């Protein structure tokens, strides 16, 4: 693990620079440039709003902001996880030619998605002001919840990055799994109020067993509804994620030099 911290420090500047270059490349390639970073989450939210707000008449309070928070957090998790599967192969030109700790690629990618998420959070703030959401006294919990989410994402991604090298069609499996998980995470409905009254057990299982459901629910509680987060479960998922992160980092270090042979 000390090796991990040293490498993280040593390659930190490279990670930032690589992430910046990637973002610049994205901007340079499209006509609307960085506007897409705003438009993309906005349109996704509008689609959800049309279907779940208008057609299904969702009754969640501050529904647009409610949706947008879920969408913002899900997008970060989903993008990182899906991209991690092909991370090594996508960077073949680097991996096959120089030595680089492989998690560096992952961290750099998380920075890119993190930057896009930050833009989404700015929009959330604007929406909260526009819809006159009262200031929550638990707002400070925003930071720990976000940190846990980053940790959960890292733990899942780093393990998938390893298996993605050896299992060619893992990407397909993950795509399907993520679709299922999307509906089980409650992006467009509240697990507590929709599932809670009729199926308390299922609601509990989803809320506690799916870290993203827990994180998104807690984030909404903290930001919109002035309710405290589930501290114990956040702590449990922090510990689980830490364990899987360490396992992932160790596996990656152990196998890093075989990757170049496989791809």
């Amino acid at each position, binding site marked *: 693990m000390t090796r991990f911290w040293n490498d993280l420090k040593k390659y930190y500047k490279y990670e930032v620079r690589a992430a910046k270059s*990637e973002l610049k490349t994205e901007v*340079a390639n499209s006509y609307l440039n960085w506007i897409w970073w705003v438009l993309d989450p906005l349109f996704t939210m509008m689609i959800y709003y049309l279907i779940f707000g208008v057609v299904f008449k969702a009754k969640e309070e501050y529904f647009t902001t409610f949706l947008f928070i879920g969408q913002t957090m899900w997008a970060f998790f989903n993008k990182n996880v899906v991209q991690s599967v092909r991370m090594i192969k996508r960077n073949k030109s680097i991996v096959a*030619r*120089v030595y680089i700790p492989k998690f560096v690629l992952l961290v750099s990618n998380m920075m890119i998605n993190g930057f896009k998420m930050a833009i989404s959070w700015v929009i959330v703030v604007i929406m909260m002001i526009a819809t006159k959401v009262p200031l929550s006294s638990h707002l400070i919990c925003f930071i720990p919840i976000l940190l846990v989410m980053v940790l959960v994402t890292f733990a899942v991604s780093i393990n998938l990055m390893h298996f993605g090298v050896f*299992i060619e069609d893992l990407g397909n*499996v993950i795509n399907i799994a993520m679709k299922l998980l999307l509906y089980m995470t409650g992006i467009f409905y509240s697990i507590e109020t929709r599932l809670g009254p009729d199926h308390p057990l299922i609601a509990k299982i989803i809320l506690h067993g799916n870290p993203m459901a827990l994180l998104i629910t807690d984030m909404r509680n903290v930001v919109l509804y002035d309710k405290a987060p589930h501290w114990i479960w956040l702590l449990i998922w922090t510990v689980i994620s830490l364990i899987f992160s360490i396992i992932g980092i160790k596996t990656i270090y152990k196998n890093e030099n075989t990757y170049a*042979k496989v791809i």
Partner: protein
Amino acid sequence: MSNNTDVIKKTETDNSNNKSLSEEIAIEVKDLWIGYKDIQAYSIKKSLLKLKKAHVEEFQAVRGVSYTVRRGEILGIIGKNGSGKSTMLKALAGIFCADKGSIDLKGNSVSLLSIGVGFQKEITGRENILLSGMLLGFSEEEIREKMPDIIEFAELGKFIDKPVKTYSSGMYSKLAFSITAVLQTEIMLIDEVLSVGDAKFKKKSYRKMKELISNKDRTVVIVSHNEQTLLELCDRVMWMHDGEIKRIGDPKEVLEEYAEFMK
């Protein structure tokens, strides 16, 4: 050309007067085995259709090779295609792992000379120098310090602040070459001596390569098919055949024998 060889030889003899310097070992390879087995990627679909375990092709690229390279020495490696030369070089660079045996670089910094690693087409030449340099393991300060030399050597003029995608292929390789030529490590691994660009730059880059290689503190391992280059540059030549060392020693003798063998 032959003058230059004499110069190298002379520095060698100068070194040997100073015993502590010439006997210092820079690379020590012991009983190195590198294979490509059991590490092929598989797909879930395939393994479902074929329940029987697929036949794994076992292939040993390097079989029990041992040798040492002294500090300041230039070792050439020759051999027919598929004899394990490039695999060995990649193992020295830390890109491949050894299945058995060990490689000890005595704490020297090492780089496999490869041009244009991590280049991003949409960002400027200047930014690419930083990106590529950091990937090669240099710190931002070191690169910034050497930046003027790189830019001067690449002869790109004001194009250095334009996106790399606007470069001609010649300019691209000039920039890529300059980065690797100016940012140097203690041990350099070279897969085919590079000379890029137009006739004038080719000469200049070849001269630069030679200058780099002949530096008496720099340990160099060159893989090449060009017998003339090896004869000109190397202190010793190693002939690899089917993953084993067939001969190692004086360039002239080994190369003559090799030429005889290849007839």
